[in-house]
């Protein structure tokens, strides 16, 4: 057993890291060795990535992360700490978001965004992405808030702090790992989302990086530029992988406090 642990773990770790490492390797392979040609092609191709694609992706990610944090913090606090009419129903409906086929609801969302004048807008796209983040984010924040010792909140209330004051000054620092986790996952999914921007955005200058990468892949019928594809995948993945490693301590704690201990 003592031997088993490092051997199995090591073998599994290699298996799990292999696709990522291979993707990086394949993206650097060129006909005559190694180089950044495939990445260069991503940016120089007629339908490749432009600066504004990166900017759009960052904007959507920022709006989604900010919006998700705002809604989920307030909502999580409400679900985790308060008793109010309709609480359980709202919570269950929020979780039901996970259970709807994406393609169908996107058509309806496209229609809806038309009603409120947010078709073909990064804000409209972000609102939709925030909604899709809510099941995970609300679940995580509700449990994070619920896990905070009651005495902490009560002593602040005795000191006469307002409800909002308690939330901001006492509760938020206590649920920091949960917040980091929610922000991280909101970033990851909005950053790499493909189908929602495809359906909800109409103008080239509002396209996100994922759209540009996929567009480039299919620009010539009958040929996939696999090397450029892996370069695109790697390019999209690197910021996420870095964030994951940097924030690892926080989100592991976030999961611990978020998923458990009522």
């Amino acid at each position, binding site marked *: 057993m003592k031997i088993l642990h490092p051997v199995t773990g090591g073998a*599994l770790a290699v298996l799990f890291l292999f696709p990522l490492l291979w*993707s990086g390797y394949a993206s650097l392979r060129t006909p005559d060795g190694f180089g950044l040609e495939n990445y260069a092609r991503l940016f120089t191709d007629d339908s490749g990535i432009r600066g504004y694609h990166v900017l759009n992706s960052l904007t959507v990610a920022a709006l989604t992360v900010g919006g998700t944090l705002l809604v989920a913090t307030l909502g999580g606090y409400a679900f985790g700490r308060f008793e109010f009419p309709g609480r359980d129903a709202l919570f269950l409906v929020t979780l039901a978001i996970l259970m709807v*086929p994406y*393609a*169908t*609801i996107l058509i309806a969302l496209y229609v809806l965004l038309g009603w409120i004048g947010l078709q073909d807008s990064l804000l409209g796209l972000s609102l939709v992405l925030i909604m899709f983040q809510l099941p995970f984010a609300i679940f995580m924040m509700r449990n994070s808030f619920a896990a905070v010792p009651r005495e902490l909140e009560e002593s602040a209330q005795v000191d006469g702090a307002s409800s909002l004051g308690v939330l901001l000054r006492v509760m938020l620092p206590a649920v920091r790992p949960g917040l980091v986790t929610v922000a991280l996952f909101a970033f*990851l999914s909005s950053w790499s989302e*493909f189908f929602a921007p495809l359906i909800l955005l109409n103008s080239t200058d509002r396209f996100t990086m994922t759209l540009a990468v996929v567009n480039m892949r299919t620009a010539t019928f009958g040929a996939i530029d696999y090397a450029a594809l892996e370069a695109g995948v790697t390019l999209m993945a690197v910021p996420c992988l870095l964030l994951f490693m940097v924030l690892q301590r926080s989100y592991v704690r976030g999961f611990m406090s978020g998923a458990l201990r009522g």
Partner: protein
Amino acid sequence: MTTTVSRPAVAVRAAPAGPRRRRALTGLLYAAPTAFMVGAFFVVPLGLVAWMSLHRWPLLGVPSLNAPANYTGSTGDTLLTDAAWFTARYTVIITVLLFTTALGMALLVQRKRPGTGLFRTAFFLPAAVGFASASLLFLGLLSAEIGPFGGVVSVSGSATTALGAAILLVLWRFAGFNMLILLTGLQAIPTEVYEAAKLDGAGRWQTFTHITLPLLRATIALVLTLIVTGSLLAFDQFWILTRGGPDNSTTSLVMVIYRKAFIELDLGSAAAVSVVLLIVLVAVSLVQLAVLRDRSAP
């Protein structure tokens, strides 16, 4: 969703009626943004989908009521019934494989030992890659053109290889994520419980089946619900990797919905299948939670 969290600590037990009502109001206020987002961007579109399912819904022009034709019209559709069976089969396979892999990995890295941190990171890292990106990554990885296994097996060579490729992808992408959730459950089990079991002379396997599993039941319920839901809605892995082939052997239910909506331009029928699928999903999740939660009450 899990017993450990379904009774949140609420500091209102002995509060008099006035403050209690005020607290309820405050809670409502905090929940308002969630209610707005869920209402406007989920309930309203969902209502629109349900409304569509009762109509012949042309892309442009005026819809006309045709209920229940969209619901009954698909009953003889073999593509749909085959896809339903495939999706069910896929869900069973993925649930078994993904759950056991994730649980095995969680047990492996449960206690701090040399290398554990590294293993955890390695297992969890694929979760950082978007699922569509991950599918594209595997498309290249398993391709004959640049993949390291080039030409050995062809993804769309047979139903088995196509399904196998999708399973590999899903295991790789989601095992770590589910492992982390299970890990949180494992770590919540007090060490004293294990020590007591040891004193009673329980073996490793007995401890696992009599202590670990029962105490983990709530977390297991959560993980299983997530896996089953995700599998019943499977789309990306097949859309990108196998295109539903070969010979429709990996055509999932959501792919059929996609086809009805975007290829046949029959939004009414697509909405009807979606509504049925949603009802099934909610029912399955409720049953799953009820069964697993019932006996977990400590």
